[in-house]
């Protein structure tokens, strides 16, 4: 699978297999990541980690360039999030996000607000101990599931939380346990997918070719114990490329602080 042109959607995301480098060798992709991307790539000593970074960054660069055609070779910056992890930043109010796992890179851009994306292999089994990153309610819901469904549910929660962390990083600093993903199917009063659904129906969201949306929910975000519902984001899950799970967090809303 190679990435294809998605157009000028306000919100879009794409996926690209690392091995293919989106049709170009990973080494060849280095020319597509800008000076800051090349500098960052030089810092990454592990070949596989460097390849993932380069492919993800090149994918993101291409998407940004399509939306800012007057900017030849747009330069993306990097900022560290609350956990010291580098996150890309783009000029002119464009919000961007990137994620990669073994075998696949994904990138997302938005002109309509914050965005966060995360990807994991559905085959992944080495999930961290749930108590370290799930809320008490999430743990209870997990315990109520049949054993056969728990790993998949954990993967959904993991990518949703990682995507939400990225989407909300400008609003405030939270933690994995500061984010609670609602169980829409368990709550009749849960808000329906709001902006994500509306945007998708109006064709403003371009999903990666071949991606299948498998769920949608809202993530509630807490920044500290005294501010129990500080923000929320809409999360949509997709399966893509025969074995990967992607979460896209958008439509971040937060009360005035």
């Amino acid at each position, binding site marked *: 699978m190679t990435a294809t042109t998605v157009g000028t959607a306000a919100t879009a995301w794409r996926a690209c297999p690392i091995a293919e480098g989106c049709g170009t060798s990973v080494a060849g992709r280095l020319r597509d990541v800008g000076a800051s991307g090349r500098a960052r790539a030089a*810092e*990454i*000593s*592990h070949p*596989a*980690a*460097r390849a993932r970074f380069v492919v993800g960054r090149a994918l993101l660069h291409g998407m940004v360039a399509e939306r800012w055609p007057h900017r030849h070779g747009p330069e993306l910056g990097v900022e*560290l999030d*609350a*956990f*010291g*992890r580098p996150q890309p930043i783009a000029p002119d109010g464009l919000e961007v996000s990137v994620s*990669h*796992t*073994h075998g696949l890179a994904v990138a997302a851009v938005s002109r309509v607000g914050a965005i966060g994306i995360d990807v*994991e292999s559905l085959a*992944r089994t*080495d*999930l*961290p*101990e749930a108590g*370290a*990153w799930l809320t008490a309610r999430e743990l209870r819901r997990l315990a109520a599931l049949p054993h056969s469904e728990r790993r998949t549910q954990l993967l959904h929660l*993991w990518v949703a939380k*990682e995507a939400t962390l990225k989407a909300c990083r400008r609003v405030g*600093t939270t*933690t*994995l*346990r*500061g984010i609670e993903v609602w169980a829409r199917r368990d709550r009749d009063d849960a808000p329906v997918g709001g902006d994500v659904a509306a945007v998708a129906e109006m064709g403003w969201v371009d999903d990666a070719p071949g991606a299948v949306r498998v769920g949608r929910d809202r993530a509630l975000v807490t920044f500290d114990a005294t501010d129990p519902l500080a923000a929320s984001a809409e999360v949509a899950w997709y399966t893509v490329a025969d074995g990967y799970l992607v979460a896209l967090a958008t439509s971040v809303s937060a009360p005035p602080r």
Partner: protein
Amino acid sequence: MNTDDLRALVIEVLSGIAPETDPALVDPTVDLRDELDLDSMDELNLITRVSERLGIDIPERDYGKLRTLDSAVTYLANRLGASAA
């Protein structure tokens, strides 16, 4: 437990998370994600396993302090009041 013990412990845990590499050969000043091809999930596995082995709670807001081998050892030593080797 002194800082050498802590370093050995972190390397041992890393060996289980990234078995195809040799954590003992990493540059102790460089981000472990870059050196050992760790992702976010690996990183949390490292922290939870070290936390469990040492019997301490490591708050999420401190995770950024364990990004390199040296910084992880320093953080853990401070938490435990460990002596230098």
